[in-house]
């Protein structure tokens, strides 16, 4: 499935967007999502969340231009990262928060389902 995905879908597009690398971690009461966003400043990042998705659109400080490359065989440049991911559990978008440090965007998404403490009789 993953091989098929890699054949059919590159991690870049002719529209100037790159897909960022990302990681999703399930951390008890919250879902932690990180994105690797080199060449991006905090003010150029847009994050949109719904209860089951998070989307990141991040403009690079300088367009990256690759020449004579692969299947394109001509100059191609990328200006931004764009990626929407589906979350494994519903989250509360209003309580989400994010930080960007050393090119890594960390988004903390509190889950809507909270744990209930059960006392032992």
């Amino acid at each position, binding site marked *: 499935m993953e091989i098929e995905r890699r054949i059919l879908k590159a991690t870049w597009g002719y529209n100037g967007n790159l897909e960022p690398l990302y*990681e999703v971690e399930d951390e008890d009461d919250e879902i932690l999502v990180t994105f690797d966003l080199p060449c991006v400043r905090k003010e150029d990042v847009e994050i949109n969340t719904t209860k089951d998705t998070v989307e990141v659109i991040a403009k690079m400080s300088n367009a990256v231009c690759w020449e004579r490359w692969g299947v394109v065989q001509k100059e191609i440049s990328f200006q931004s990262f764009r990626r929407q991911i589906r979350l494994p559990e519903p989250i509360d978008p209003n309580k989400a928060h994010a930080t960007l440090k*050393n090119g890594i965007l960390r988004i903390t998404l509190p889950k809507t389902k909270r744990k209930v403490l059960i006392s032992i009789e």
Partner: protein
Amino acid sequence: MEEVVKIVEEDGVEYKNPIVIEGLPDVGLVGTIAASYIVEKLNYKEIGHIESDLFPPVMVIHDGKLKNPFRIYSAEGGRIVVVLSEVAVPPKAVYPLTTALADWFHKIDVKQPVISVKGLPMKNRMDIEKPEVFAVGNDEGAMKELKAKQMDLLEEGFIAGTYAIMLRECSKRKISAISLLAQCYPVYPDPGAAASAIETVKKFVTSLDIDVGELLENAEGIKLKARDLMQQTALSASEMQKGMEQDMPIMYR
């Protein structure tokens, strides 16, 4: 019987008490980035490559020239040898590849510890300004060398992947080997970790005259170019039990 993994050297290559630096892809691509920077910055000569039916059917083109993605470089008249790859090592190739390399190290008479440059995945890497480097050695000679260089040692835990088996295969042939593990992002390319690793390699290879300034300056560009290899490597990593590096061994001490 035909070899599963074949080391192909150019004719007339000579080695003089070589020091081997191995930088195959692993977490953070630390070894790959470090090895590529060393061979490109210091203009090392390509002296061979590694072939196997177990590798993906891929060749790479650089400046219009067809190249094997698993390559071997040398410098200083055969005193330094660097092994690197531009594609992820498939899990099924780990044992035959490390066996073939260890056999080859024996053949070219490697007497100094083989150095594997790798990453040590850290969940809090984004809060670490300058990654530290830890080490593992496979025998008394290697441990003596690590202590002499005042390296911090990994003392408990599992190690997984090519470097773990490389240490073992070298031990079986009585070749000293060490792994240098720079704190890194688990699934993102990490040029900062590679820079720390190179600084540590310099302690063991004193003739390695290289400044990591350019690597750090170009870190963001390197991260962009390394995205696809990082993704391939992360896919292989799960099959290589890399997750076990976060587990605690059961042995009572």
